[in-house]
């Protein structure tokens, strides 16, 4: 098993402004993201040999990408894999390059959610007997929060405050990012006192629903050198799919095995022994504040049950030991499902290149992205790790 480490590189990326893009169709968003990536890489559209389009509900096939970009009869595959969709499109594109099938490929993630007329997440489901609770994601993740507080003997007030600090941290970072949907700071008190969405999660514990797109141009390290010196190397691409927690009465709701497994697999591929020590930054799937707290522990950033201590110590803030969600995360970008994974890679790419403007970290050589799709008990999880060019 050779793995993907150092076998492919990113030479160009693009990311739209995320938000309620009433002005833009999904096709517009793709054009915006991909043309930024073309310009960033310095390539002509006709140099793209194959493409992967990640979207959950905006399109059914790869065809809309060809139509929007007028790609030249190249192969295009549409990828759908829940909240890991964009990262999985990126993963499949990378593998095609690593296999030597293509030299230069394009991975795009896009989602247009704001045409549904409904302020929450409206994703159609396949016909069934329809008896599972009709709960949108907040209530599902709130069950993890309830149990987390219970298991570790954390009072409601203490738990809410820890979660609020996570939201405040991500809003602080997002306020520095003009591509974010929400660019204002919030105080922990605001977070705690916000209207309840799904107890114990309030409004600011939940990420928004937004439109957006992001794109990456992937090639081999050899070719990458001919384009630029500050290309970014792929160190690991892991995916873990599980549906067992929901069936197991011994599963605790306070850890997500899919994150643990994807993390372990990525660390092994990248050769990382201690994620907290070795990583310089991480973009993780903060669909809800409780999710980010549990991810700290699942990815080995914090010991089990001790995530709150690290939150209190500021470990994951911009100035901390391991900055998490430096771009503002899902909290500030919202979650256009099929776009989020590549949006995260975009931030890591910019940080590793030293081009993250006011958010730039002092040291940024190794970064991680993490997506978690589904619901507690049944997730699709991707973890990707990127390193700066040697």
């Amino acid at each position: 098993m050779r793995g993907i480490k150092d076998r492919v590189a990113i030479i160009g990326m693009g990311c739209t402004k995320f938000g309620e893009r009433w002005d833009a169709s999904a096709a517009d968003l793709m054009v915006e993201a991909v043309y930024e990536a073309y310009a960033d890489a310095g390539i002509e559209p006709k140099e793209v040999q194959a493409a992967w389009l990640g979207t959950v509900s905006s399109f059914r096939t790869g065809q809309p990408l060809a139509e929007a970009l007028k790609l030249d009869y190249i192969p295009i595959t549409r990828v759908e894999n829940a909240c890991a969709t964009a990262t999985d499109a990126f993963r499949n594109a990378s593998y095609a390059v690593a296999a030597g099938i293509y030299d230069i490929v394009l991975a795009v993630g896009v989602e247009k959610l704001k045409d549904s007329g409904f302020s929450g997440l409206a994703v159609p489901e396949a016909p069934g007997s329809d008896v599972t609770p009709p709960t949108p994601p907040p209530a599902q993740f709130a069950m993890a929060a309830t149990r987390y507080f219970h298991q570790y003997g954390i009072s409601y007030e203490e738990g809410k405050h820890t979660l609020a600090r996570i939201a405040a941290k991500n809003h602080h970072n997002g306020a520095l990012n003009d591509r974010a949907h929400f660019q204002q700071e919030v105080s922990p008190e605001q977070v705690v006192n916000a209207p309840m969405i799904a107890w114990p999660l309030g409004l600011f514990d939940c990420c928004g629903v937004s439109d957006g797109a992001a794109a990456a141009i992937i090639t081999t390290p050899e070719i990458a050198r001919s384009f630029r010196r500050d290309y970014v190397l792929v160190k690991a691409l892991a995916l873990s799919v599980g549906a067992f927690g929901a069936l197991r009465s011994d599963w605790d709701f306070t850890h997500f095995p899919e994150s643990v497994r994807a993390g372990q697999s990525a660390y092994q591929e990248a050769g990382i022994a201690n994620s907290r020590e070795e990583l310089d930054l991480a973009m993780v799937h903060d669909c809800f504040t409780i999710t980010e707290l549990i991810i700290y522990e699942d990815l080995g950033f914090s010991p089990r049950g001790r995530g709150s201590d690290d939150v209190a110590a500021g470990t994951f803030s911009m100035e901390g030991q391991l900055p998490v969600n430096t771009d503002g995360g899902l909290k500030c970008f919202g979650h256009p499902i099929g776009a989020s994974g590549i949006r995260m890679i975009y931030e890591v790419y910019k940080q590793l290149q030293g081009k993250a403007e006011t958010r730039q970290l002092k040291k940024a050589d190794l970064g991680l992205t993490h997506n978690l799709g589904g619901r507690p008990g049944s997730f699709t999880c991707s973890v990707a790790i990127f390193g700066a060019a040697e």
Partner: protein
Amino acid sequence: MVGIIAWGAYIPKYRLGRETVGWGTSSGRGLERAVANFDEDSVTMAVAAALDCLGEGNRQEVDGLLFASTTAPYAEKQSAAIIATALDLRRDIFTADITDVLRAGATALKSALDAVAAGSAGQVLVVAADTRQGPPRSETERNSGDGAAAFLVGSDGVQAELAGSHSITENMLDNWRSAGDAFVRSWEDRFATEEGLERIVSEAVAGFLNKHGLTPQDFAKLALYGPDARRQSRLARRLGFQPDQVQDPLFDQLGNTGVAFPLMLLVGALEEAKAGQLLLTVSYGDGSDLLSFRTTDSFVWERRRRGGLAGHLATGRTLENYETYARWRELWTTDEATRRPTPAAPSVSALWRDNDKNLRLYAGKCSSCGYVQYPAQRVCVNCQAKDDFATVRLSDRPGEVFTYSMDYIAGAVDLPLVVSAVDFQGGGRIICMMTDRELAEVRVGMPVAMSFRKLRVVNGIHNYYWKAIPRRFEDED
């Protein structure tokens, strides 16, 4: 000996009462009535009463199920089949809905006893339930309550032997509701009472007494239908019964529960009866069906774990305002524009395929490793053994809340929606909605029971499933 082996009742948790803001108590009477929750209907209440009746008994011995109601969910599609499936009865049984008239409960009971007497069935389960509705703030609404009764009849282990029956049929429109009408209609009160109820029931009771050579004094209790307290007591007097012979009609606590009413009163009479007493139940509607029972010499009423009539009566909770009730009955429409889009209708083929999963609430227990998993799987989640499972019915197992959340954006009724992960005694976990809950009592570790409920109606398809409820009775474990 043919008669009643076991009985049970169900009364919904919620009440409209004196403290309910906006509920008409202008007359000054301390009227209280039981009302089905938004996710209850005659089918779900029938299931609850039947479970109360069956207790720990062997459901495999039931050879038939008769369901009586004027408020069956479907005009075409049998409710008894839904109920029999939810109760996990055998497949080779006969089932029927006996509907459209207020005396249908007594008719069903008589038919079941006849089937046993004829030797065509060993045990038959009879369930009667109603959720009749009058227009908002009408007299019908004020007087009506929701509830259900169930009887297991047979020839072995009889507690109350059938002592006789009598029927009259007379075509009359005094109360009626056409297909498509939401509310019950009535003709002028004095016609309905004097020319209908009083004359017909008097004739039926007299016919019964003559036929069997009995007098009113021979009866310990009379379980008598009546639309309200005044008319019922007047009717009892006219029939020659003393007030202390009349089973408490519970008009101030329950309301007129329609088809279920005389049967619920019979349950009440049985709960208070002693050995060797004669009881009479009298129904009314397009005539009358009467049934009389004599409790056996060895009669004992063991309080069943789910509470019977008395237990359910004692565990009510008064609604704070009429608006809640109006919302439940869709008398008060809510703006759902900003809410989650209405779900598509369930797939009928999937519903059929999922009968065991959804209605019987079967989990699988791996024969190799013993792990209980819901829904039942083809491949074991614990040891990956394939297609080697025993069936475990979770619907009557007590459980405990492992975790939960309270969703404030899930819809417009019953906010917040409590979603719970419930662990069952003996293994297995379900993630399901919780209903009949008071927010202050919901907690990790809370003891719950499963209750059959209606999730929603889309495209005329009534989708039923189980929800967790706080355990209503102390001894449920």
